[in-house]
Every structure is written in C-alpha cells, then in structure tokens.
C-alpha cells in the first residue's frame, strides 16, 4: 500500500507523517513529565505558546480562570524554576496514558488535536491514585522541522484536585 494519507469517516485526510509526528509529540511530552524531566516541558511550546489547565465545569461555563494559566514560554519556565527552588511538596511521579489523537487541519495552518488522558500518581509511600482524567485540546504548529504546541488546554473532568498540583499534566 503506497497510500501516504490516513482518512477516517467524515474527517479530512491527514498525512501519515503528520499523524505520526503528533503522536510522537504527545508521547515525548508525556514521558518527559513522567520522568520528571520538567525542564523539557516549556520546550514543547512555541515562544508565545499557551498552557491552560482547567476543569470541564469552567470550560462549559466559559470562565477564564482554571488551575494553571501560562501565557508564553516564560511563564512556563518560571513554573519550572519554582518547581526546583521554591515549591514544597511530597515527592511523587505521574504515569500518563494518552488516547489516540483526533486531528483536524486548520485553515490558517497547523492542526487542532484532541486526545484523552488518564494520569496515575504514585507517592513515595507507594500509594497510587487515579489522579486526573480528562482531555487535551491542542493547537499544534510546524516550526522549522518540529511540531510544537501553540496551545495546549488540559481539561480535567473533575472540579477537584487531590492534595495539590505541581507537575503539569
């Protein structure tokens, strides 16, 4: 089969290379956080990229304030710095499970991407909790030879965060 595009019912054709590229972006992003390579986190975004973490309830009510709201990579870097030097918390790790991406090309370039996630958090004590369930609403763009998030909106289904949130989802 020499077909270079993958098409789903009712959805526009997406180049297989794009699909694999976005999948790789999702995987790299999740694994970096799971490995607490948090310094890498801002680098998945464009310079003016937006990272928002909010709840389904806030999204439905169209309310602007959620849980985290970084406008530009600088605000993300400040969070990374705070993680290393200012914030106090009990050590823990995440394990992201990411669902397949739903990709729609945007007329202005780039792609609107939606995917589900579940994150299990393991504390040093060994306690494991299903910590967050929700979906990512992304705008992914091509910059040079990289795919980057121009926007990543993390929408958690619950209104409630257990204990605290210091590592991004």
């Amino acid at each position: 089969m020499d077909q270079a595009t993958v098409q789903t019912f009712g959805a526009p054709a997406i180049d297989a290379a794009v699909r694999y590229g976005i999948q790789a972006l999702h995987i790299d992003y999740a694994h970096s956080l799971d490995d607490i390579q948090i310094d890498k986190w801002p680098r998945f975004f464009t310079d003016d990229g937006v990272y928002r973490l909010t709840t389904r309830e806030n999204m439905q009510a169209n309310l602007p304030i959620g849980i985290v709201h970084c406008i530009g990579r600088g605000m993300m870097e400040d969070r990374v710095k705070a993680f290393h030097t200012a914030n106090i918390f009990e050590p823990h790790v995440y394990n992201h499970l990411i669902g397949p991406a739903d990709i729609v090309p945007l007329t202005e370039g780039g792609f609107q991407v939606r995917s589900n996630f579940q994150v299990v958090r393991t504390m040093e004590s060994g306690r494991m909790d299903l910590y967050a369930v929700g979906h990512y609403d992304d705008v992914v763009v091509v910059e040079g030879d990289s795919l980057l998030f121009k926007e990543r909106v993390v929408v958690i289904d619950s209104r409630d965060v257990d204990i605290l949130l210091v590592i991004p989802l």
Partner: protein
Amino acid sequence: MQVQTTPNRGNEFVWPEQGPTRAPFRVFSDPEIYAEEQEKIFRGPVWNFLCLATDIPTPGDYRTTTIGETPVVVTRGEDGTINAMVNRCAHKGALVCLKKAGNAQRLTCVYHAWSYNLDGTLKAVAFRNGLKGKGGMPEDFDVKQHRMQPVRVEVFCGLVFGTFSDKTEPVETFLGPQMSAFMRRNLDRPLRVLGTHSQTIRNNWKLYAENLRDSYHATLLHTFYTTFKVNRLDMDGGITLADKGWHHVSFARRAKLEESAEYAQANVHSAAYDSKLAGPALLEAWDEFDDGITHSIQTMFPNLCVQFTLNSLALRFFAPRGVDETELFWIFLGYEQDTAEQTQMRVAQSNLTGAAGLVSLEDGCINEFVQRGTHMSPNVSSFMEMGGRKVESEASSRATEAAVRGFWKGYRSIMDF
C-alpha cells in the same frame, strides 16, 4: 447534679492551662469532637457561607452546598428573595436537588415526587388521594405541616450566608465594624465569577483555619512570595482581630518594603532564588485602592476566607468532609466593571493561588503533614507564642501567631472547652 454535656468524650479532655497558645492535637483527629463541631459550630450561632448572590441571579435558580457536612440548597424565589433549606425531602430524607446548580419552578424529590416551592414549603404530594379511590394519605394530612427544613439567610456584600440558629446576630454584628468595613472594601460592588475549582486536602478543617491566620508561616513556607516581593514580613503590614478572636485581617503594603537583614540571616531559602521572572506578566498589577494595601487575607469564622493578593481576588471556602479531610473551594472573582485588560491581569495572577498556586500549593500538603504528625499524639499540644501570648491586634507586624490564638480563643468559647 452535675450535667455532663459530652458523655462520649468523658472527663479526660481538658484544654491545656496555657490557653490559646496551645492546641491539643486531639482536636484534629477525634471523631467525637468533630461530631460536636457539626452541632455547636456549623449548626450553631455562626454565619456559614453558602454561595454568591450572583450564582443565582434569576428566579428559579438554585445552588447546592453544605453547611458543615449538612447538604443545603439555596434558591432564588419568584419574587427575587433568596431562600435556603436543608437539601432533604420531608418524606424519607432523600436529597431533593442532585445537581450543583440549575433552574426549576419547583423542587421535586425524585424518590416519590414530593414537590416543593422555591422557599421549601411543600406544594404537592404524588398520589395524595390515592388511585381509583384506594390508598392515599390519611384525611388529616396537611401539606402545611411538612416542608424542607429552612435555613435563615442573609446577604452581605454579594455573599449569601446561612445559619441554623435563631441566636445568630446580623452578619455585620457577627463580623464587627472593622471586619465588615474590610469586606466592603473588597466585595461591595457587583462581582463576577472568573473561575472555580476545589482541592481536597487530607487534614482536619481547623488546620486550614489556623493556616490562613498564620502570617508567620506565609513567607517562610511559600517562598515564591518572598522571592518576588509579593509579600514579605518586612513589608509594612499588620493584623487586625475581631473582638471574639473569630475573624481576622492580615494585610501588607508592597510599595513600603524596607528590606530587613533578617531574611538573609535566617537563611530563608527564597533568598537564594533569582527573582527575575521570565514571564513578568504573572505579576503585572494595578493599584485598586487608596489605602496602599496590596496583599490581604481575611478570615470569617468558621470556614471562609477572602484573599486579595495584588489584584487576585478570591474566596476560599473550606468544607469539612470528615475528621481528616477537607474540600477547599477556590472561587476567583473580578468586578462587573473590570476592563478586559484588568480581567487579563486577574487571570494571569490566578497562577499565584489555587491547587497549583505558586504561593499556595504547599498548603495542600503542609496541613496533611501536621495531621500525620499529630494523629497518634492526642495529648500533646502545639506551641504558639510567636508575637507573645496575647490575643490582640498587631498594627505593625505580622511576625506573630496572634490570629491563630484568636481562632483558638473563639473555638474554645463556642465549643465550651
């Protein structure tokens, strides 16, 4: 004959003689004390925060919440008045309203379809007269004798409060003149909700009540504050206590920072932190008030706080969910009159607080650390003599535990400990 009011606890529980400078750890983990608090505090002579008036703007709007752990529903009646009732059917006791919020002409219990007017009075009972002449309620059944249990309501500064007690004074009297004036400063104009979420903290609710009143810890634990000079104890600031000690305001003026050598000498770990932000939009702020106060925390007994950090205005409402679990609600606010640019600044500053707040996330775990550290030591007490042993306002320093002592003074009086 001596009446023993707390038979389950027996006579062994005695508050330490040092008074409000000590809190016996037992009060954070004893389920019997927790049950007593539900009765004496939350169902007692206090005003409990229920919701914002703007949450239920239209007749028929309702909103569910809890007073202590008791489920409550707040409604906007046809005539615009606000009502509150225990969210419990007068028939079998099921929850009447299941959703967080909604709009309805009447409230109907899903179990047997008993339906209530928006003020909680019983309107109709399904199959009251039976079917085909059989069954039905007795002839002397009177809908007026049954209703959802009412909760007395008062609105102050756009906040809806409820109380179970007939003895609770009006909200302004309950708060006292200074506390009322400061609440007016922050909230007495049309409010707009900008976003909400909650955070489950695994500790007794009083540990968070203490934590909010503890201006001593704020800049030591939350080092992001100090680093970026949002709030440091060497800023001009102080603490005002309400008469009973129940409520307090802690305030600071960012412009009047005179750096003191103690921060460097105390090896506060924030001092090592490079204070230049890569994303300075986080702290872009404007002066909203003439009094120069740029940071304030106001508590209202038992479980409400109004936060104003730079331009980040938020309510923190912490609802007990068991002796060792508390749900902390963050309700971020702006004013109807805000410009788009001002809203944007409030949005950026929202990163400071909340479950992932750069200056607040530590409170999610620190109170749990106290819970875990104390739960097996009921007869040991904390030590709180920073700033002396008195319970009084401190106009020029926040290096004090005066407001925490105030809380315990008020707590002991209402609990009769």
